[in-house]
């Protein structure tokens, strides 16, 4: 992804972002990701023709933070709601913003079927390895050994399984046109996240199929860390488990085999570490 790093306009509030205070905790990367999504909407001129779907979790109030039309969806169902909007109004640009409890636990069915139908929607998937809003419970994305409210002794693989690799799974679906995993732990990676989100929206604008960007994110409050420690934890603990990279890209190699995509994702790990 190094070829698509872009400059970030720093001191200009994006027009697609509402001029209100957010409810996010200090050090949480939702704010940065919101800003990036809004910047991309500005750049691609989407604000007047986009419908965003907010999900259930910390980002439930996203409908207050984006200036485009918004719908709030039931827990896990944002891809189904997005499908309903997009199918009856194909001229609109429809996107969802979902956390890992919403998308990777209760909503796995909806996201997988949206991908396999090649639904022309864009999914922003926030993976912070925990449930934030409800107070730090284990998610399917929780790392082995990670302590949460519901894994007080650390996630035990033999009891509650292993972290889910949604991007790798979704890339196997023929209808998935662009699938990438990025991180937010430093400015270079925020730049890559921006580039991936832009490409995901372009995938929809080109009518190529389903697009999703999984974004490794922080939850200092529920992780019990300072914001700086949290960014370091993403880099040192999450990135090795969740390799960064592009798993599917219609533009570059739409026909790349899943096995090759997996291999590319693995090889992307050291290069994308951002150290």
């Amino acid at each position, binding site marked *: 992804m190094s070829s698509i790093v872009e400059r970030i306009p720093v001191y200009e509030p994006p027009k697609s972002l509402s001029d209100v205070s957010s409810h996010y905790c200090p050090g949480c990367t939702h704010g940065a990701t919101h800003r990036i999504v809004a910047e991309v909407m500005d750049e691609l001129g989407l604000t007047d023709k986009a419908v965003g779907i907010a999900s259930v979790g910390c980002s439930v109030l996203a409908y207050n933070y984006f200036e485009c039309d918004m719908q709030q969806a039931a827990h896990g169902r944002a891809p189904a709601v997005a*499908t309903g909007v997009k199918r009856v109004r194909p001229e609109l640009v429809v996107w969802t913003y979902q956390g890992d409890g919403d998308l990777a636990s209760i909503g796995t069915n909806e996201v997988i079927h949206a991908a396999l139908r090649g639904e022309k929607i864009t999914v922003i998937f926030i993976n912070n390895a925990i449930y934030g809003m409800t107070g730090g419970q284990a998610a399917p994305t929780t790392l082995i050994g990670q302590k949460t409210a519901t894994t007080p002794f650390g996630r035990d693989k033999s009891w509650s399984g292993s972290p889910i690799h949604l991007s790798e799974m979704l890339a196997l679906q023929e209808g998935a046109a662009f699938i990438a995993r990025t991180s937010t732990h430093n400015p270079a990676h925020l730049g890559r996240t921006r580039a991936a989100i832009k490409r995901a929206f372009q995938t929809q604008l080109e009518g190529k199929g389903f697009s999703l960007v999984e974004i490794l994110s922080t939850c200092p409050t529920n992780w019990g860390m300072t914001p700086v420690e949290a960014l370091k934890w993403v880099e040192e603990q999450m990135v090795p488990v969740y390799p960064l990279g592009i798993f599917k890209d219609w533009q570059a190699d739409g026909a790349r085999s899943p096995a090759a995509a997996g291999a590319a994702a693995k090889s992307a790990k050291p290069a994308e570490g951002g150290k």
Partner: protein
Amino acid sequence: MTKSASSAPAGGVPVLMKGNEALGEAAIRAGCRAFFGYPITPQSELPAYMARRMPEEDGVFLQAESELAAINMVYGAAGAGVRVMTSSSSPGISLKQEGISYIAGAELPAVIVNIMRGGPGLGSIMPGQSDYFQATKGGGHGDYRLVVYGPATVQELVDLTIRAFNVADRYRSPVMILGDGILGQMMEPVVFPTEKPAEVAKPWATTGRQGTRGRNVVNSLYLAAEELEAHNLRLQAKFAEMHSNEVIYESIIPEGAEVVCVAYGTTARVVKSAIAMARQEGIKVGLIRPISLWPFPDEAFVNLPDTVRSVLTVEMSAGQMVEDVRLALNGRLPVHFYGRMGGMWPIPRDVLAEIKKAAGREAGVAR
């Protein structure tokens, strides 16, 4: 997709159609432009009909991965401002309840069809009326109401489906068609209207700002208690208006009636046969047939003639609507109940026997 030649049945003249398919055609004629569903017996002919007909009308048919997805696709499409419908049968409708609550909370118009089968659990695929509580008393979480229609003939299924879309738009509220498996499966002559549906402006819909307005938001979340209470009070005012305006029923009370039967849907047709048999035996019996199950036609139970000794409610359930009958009568008359369950339905001979009991005409029983 190329628009194919229309296979629409003619309007204004009788055509012979199966209930489920006639319902689909009625929806299309009401301006329904999207259908999201999931297969379940005994309503499967409806999505199959929509799969065939929707492309002819530039509409959307999509088979969802689950009932949960289907009802949330309905939420999205309704929020985007088009007339949209989903259908299912009892267990599938249970799955849709979360979505129906969200649709009611977000004040979206949509039509939901339940072609009821026997329950509880997986139950059977044979007809039932045991989802009356679920349909009329809430179904999902929170304080909300649906207008619920209980059609008794294929023609009424058509007429009420068209009405359902109009009522849904008028109140920005989901409306349910509560049919039973017999009605869905039976064929009867039916006449479709020829009028085109009225265009309804939906300035609240998420159609993209298009440079003409600020952001529209479709939402049922109000985190501040004061705001959620205010939202609920607004909803309740709307439900009160629906309660005042949307009552429909049929009432046939002959002079000198001794008993009044209460039944809806297919059961009401069985009861009509039993009433005719009773008349031949010299027993005068009336019928109140609620067509809107919510709002329930309480007014039909006011001013019954003094000759009426008791009321007999007949249902394909263990006794659900009978509770509303008792509430409407408020103790003024004794209320008897006869029900069949599990996919069994009442037959006229058995209903006649219950009428005789209710009239105190049972052999060997003193009046």
